[in-house]
Every structure is written in structure tokens, then in C-alpha cells.
């Protein structure tokens, strides 16, 4: 019978290496005369982690799961991604701590919940408005009017060709004013962004 036990976060007072055995009694001057080998040896005399000791509650065999202080490796498949008949699903069942994922703050301010409140007639209207008057009905304005994201507007319809042409000219005009430094910085930023996907 093997059970997993994840060590709890240790408090500052249980970290023995911060307190050498004779720390309080020996003054700083007295320690100076100790030979460096003994000093180093004393510092290394660390009590083992609490999770390694034979605990009174678990008298039977157990596996000590002490996760390393590093990012999880990619070859470690998350339990959710394991197929239902994989044996690792049951093996890991005990050690998985759900923790406090619900309390963690979200990256984005807005809620990610989708509402699906627009019907086909609304989408028809979005397309009509954007084609009829592309200068006044921008993506942002349409998004505000129909209470959806500009991304959704882009997914639903495309800008008129003349509007695209104008936008391209505006962008070129802006970019033509960039100097060498800014241009290089922008290009570097794009290259860095591409490297995210390669995990570099």
C-alpha cells in the first residue's frame, strides 16, 4: 500500500539551517577562530526535511512526493489529458491537490464566459452597417453597439476593400515616420513574439 503525502509549506522557524547549533552562545569573535572546515561542516549539518522522517500517522510504506522547485516538465502529461484507461490516472488520484485555483486572480479583467446573445438577424445588420458606411462604423463602434467583442465583429464580417486600402495607407504613413531605432525595436518585438510559440 503506497500513499502520497505532499509536504506542507514549512514555516521559517522549522528551517534548521538558519540556526546553527551553537549560534546563540558563540559570539562573532569566537567563531572567527574556528577552523573553516569545522565551520563549514557545522553549517552543512542540516536536519532532514520534515517529510522524510517516519511520521506517526503513516506507519506503513509511503511514497514521499516532494516536487522540485522548477517549472513542471512538458513530458509530464496533466491528469486531465490522460485517457480514461491509463493507469496513471488512478495512481495520481491521491497526490493531486486541487489547491486554491478558484481563488487565483484571472489574467484578464473581463469574464471569459460566452453569452451567445446575437441572433442571425443581428449579424446580418452588422454586415450591412460595416459595408454601407465603413468610416463611421468601425469594429469598436459596432462592438459597443451590439455588446460584443471587436474580435467577434472581425470573425463575422470583413471590411470593405476601399476601407482596407485607406487603413493600409494610414499605417504606411505612420511607419514612414519611424526611425531606425523604433523600426528595429518593433521588429525585435515581433521576433520575440514568434519565439513564444517555439518555447524558446
Amino acid at each position, binding site marked *: 500500500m503506497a500513499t502520497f503525502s505532499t509536504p506542507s509549506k514549512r514555516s521559517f522557524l522549522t528551517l534548521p539551517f538558519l540556526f546553527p547549533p551553537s549560534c546563540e552562545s558563540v559570539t562573532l569573535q569566537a567563531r572567527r577562530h574556528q577552523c573553516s572546515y569545522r565551520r563549514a561542516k557545522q553549517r552543512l549539518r542540516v536536519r532532514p526535511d520534515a517529510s522524510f522522517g517516519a511520521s506517526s500517522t503513516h506507519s506503513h510504506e509511503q511514497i514521499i512526493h516532494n516536487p522540485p522547485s522548477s517549472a513542471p516538465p*512538458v513530458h509530464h502529461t*496533466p491528469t486531465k489529458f490522460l485517457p480514461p484507461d491509463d493507469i496513471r490516472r488512478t495512481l495520481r488520484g491521491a497526490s*493531486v491537490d486541487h489547491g486554491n485555483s478558484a481563488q487565483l486572480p484571472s*489574467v484578464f479583467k473581463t469574464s471569459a464566459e460566452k453569452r451567445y446573445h446575437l441572433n442571425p438577424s443581428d449579424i446580418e445588420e452588422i454586415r450591412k452597417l460595416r459595408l454601407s458606411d465603413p468610416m463611421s462604423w468601425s469594429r469598436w463602434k459596432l462592438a459597443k453597439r451590439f455588446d460584443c467583442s471587436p474580435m467577434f465583429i472581425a470573425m463575422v464580417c470583413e471590411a470593405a476593400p476601399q476601407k482596407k486600402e485607406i487603413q493600409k495607407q494610414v499605417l504606411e504613413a505612420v511607419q514612414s515616420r519611424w526611425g531606425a531605432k523604433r523600426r528595429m525595436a518593433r521588429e525585435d518585438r515581433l521576433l520575440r513574439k514568434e519565439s513564444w510559440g517555439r*518555447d524558446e
Partner: protein
Amino acid sequence: MKRLQLQRWSRSVLSPRARTGGRLQEHLYYSLRRQSTVSTALQAENEQLIEEKSLDPSTRLTKSSKYEYLLPSPPVGAARKSAKLAALHARLYLPSRLPLETLARSLVDASADPHPNFNNESLATLGHDLLSHYTSEHLICKYPRLPITVIFAAMYAYVGPKTLAAMAKEWGVEMAVVPGGEVDPGLLQFKRVLPGTDLDAEPVTGTGRPNEHRTSWRKSMTSRIIYDNEFGDPVKVSAGASAPATVPGSQNTQGVTAEQASATFVRAVMGAIYLHAGRPAAKRFFEQHFLSRHLNISDLFNFSQPARDLSRLCAREGFEPPVAKIISETGRKSRHPVFVVGIFSGQDKLGEGAGASLLEARSRAAVASLKGWYLYSPLNVRVPSSMEEEGAAPWKPVYVDLGEVIV
């Protein structure tokens, strides 16, 4: 003192046309040369043929030293005399059932000797198929969820021409400057491309693809699976390839690169082992030389929109939609902030990543989650070819995945 061999020295000076003997004579010698990889019955027939022909006065030249200078590649008899060849045989721990003559034949590229009975083309074809088979079954059984583009890349990394050329170099195979009958058979013989030739100049034609002249058209992944080779590269259809190759003496004008010739040699060795020593020896050779090489599959992925792919994946598999949450952060208002973002589906963490901005950290976390999905590997993997061993346990079906995420 060594005897000076003026004739050998002058060979590089003499142009092919200046050599004695015309095309007809060369043709005659072809029929006299004996193959190394033939059945005994065929060999006996050949010997009879040679005995009959040797009565003919015009073939007396076989005895003379000029004979080997007329050949495009070393004669079969020279294989036993080559120290290089024997050393290569021993260095690779090749089975003793694989004769030196076949190893010598596998060192002769089709550009050096166009005659199919004396070059390594047929051995290389067999070896190439074996290598592709063993590698693909290993990849697909070990990582059943890999996307097809990554499988292409992994195949290229294991048995691609670049890797095979590197292997030939690591085996200590040396190359002949110019192929010929008097060259040591332990050297790799091929005709080199002329310096300054642009290899990528002309577009690939004759691939058998519909609309191949339309270069601007997008090539879909499905069409790449059907029409292209195991590395996702366009492959030429060999419809009439056999016809010109069988004509002896037809000079292959354009040579091959050293990389191509080395790759062909390594494939030919694999095919030769399969022919002479059998399937288990070939499998062992593959495992020892190819599969033992180091390759980190997780480095072969390049995602363009990982967050979108991950949400599509969760929708397909019926998981809760992924939500990015900040696990820890430091220095948000400083010049070098660090955010650690985890991607959660419901209560479960799928992956996490660290970055200098929230977007970067989220993107890296999504990449980590997708790699966690794609790099799933079942326990106790067995490949189908393991059933060919004697006394193999009954086959249990391997894990088959739905396929990659389609956006």
C-alpha cells in the same frame, strides 16, 4: 621501395574519351561483371556465361591490368583486398553473413555506376523503406497524439538525409574524389555536382501532384500526406526511371551531392543487412544506430496561436474552457516584471508558463498545455514489428488518438 604505378597516376589526367576501349567494349565488360547479391543458381549461371565468354578472344583483356580502369566502379574481386572495407565492416559490427562484396556494392552510388546490378540503388530503396517503417511505427506508437507536421519533422530528424549523412561521417566513411574501377572499394564512390551549381534553381517537377505548375497555390496537409514522402517533401514519381538506368554506359550527367550519396549509402547498408542477416539483425541495427540518437521531440513544435488551439482542443474533448490565472508575479510596475500564469480547466491545471508580460506568460502556458496534450506517451509501448520476434506476447492494440486539433 614501392613500385610506381604510372598508369594509375595518369588516370586523372586522361579524359574519359581518351581511355582505350569504346562504348561497345564497356558494354561487354558489364555483362562479364558478377554481382555480389544474387542467388547461387544465378551465380552459377553467370559463371557459366563467363566461361563461355572467356573463350572469345576479344575478352582476353580481363586478365590485363587495364580491365579495371575501364570499369566505372571497383570490380567485385577487389572487395576482399581492401583494408578500408574490412575495417568499416568490423567497425560497424556488421553480421558476418553480410559479405564484404555487398558492403562494397553499397558504397557505389548510382551516379558513379549507372548499371543497376552494381550500384546501391536497389539496396537503398529497400533500406529506405525499412528505416521509414521502423521510425514511423516507433513515433506513432510512442507518441500517439503527435500532429502530422511534427511527425514529418521527427522523421526527418531520425532518418532524414542530413542525419544519415552525419551518420556516414561518424562511421568514418571516406569519399573517393572521382569514382572509378581502380579506386579502393572502401571509399564512397559518387559523381560530384559541379561547383557553383544551384541545387534549388529549378522547381521540382514530375511529382505526380495535380496542378503542380501553380506554385502559388497552397499545399494542404492532406495532399502532403498523399503525394509527398515521409518528410513532407515533394517526391518525384519514378514512372520511367527504370528505363534509362538499365542502359549500361549511359552517363548520368548531373552528379549528386555528398549529403545525398552518404544518405544513400547508409540506407543501402540497412537494406543489405536485411537481405543477408534477416529481419532481427536489421531491427537491432536500427535500434542501435538510429533510435539511440538523441532527439528532444518537444523542441520540434512551433505554435502560431496556442491559446486558440487550446480552447478548440478543450471544446473538442469536452473539458471546461481553459482560463488563464496568475499563479505568482513580481515587479509588475518595474522594468523587469515576471508573471507566472497557469492555464486551468475547471479545477485542473493544464500547464504553466513564465513571461515578462501577462500575454507572454499566457501564451507560454498555452504552449506548455498543448505540449502536455501532444506529448502523451502510453506506458509499456510495443510496436507492431515486435510481433515478428519469436515467442512474442499476444498483440494488444496500441492507443490511437483522434488526431490533432483542427482550427
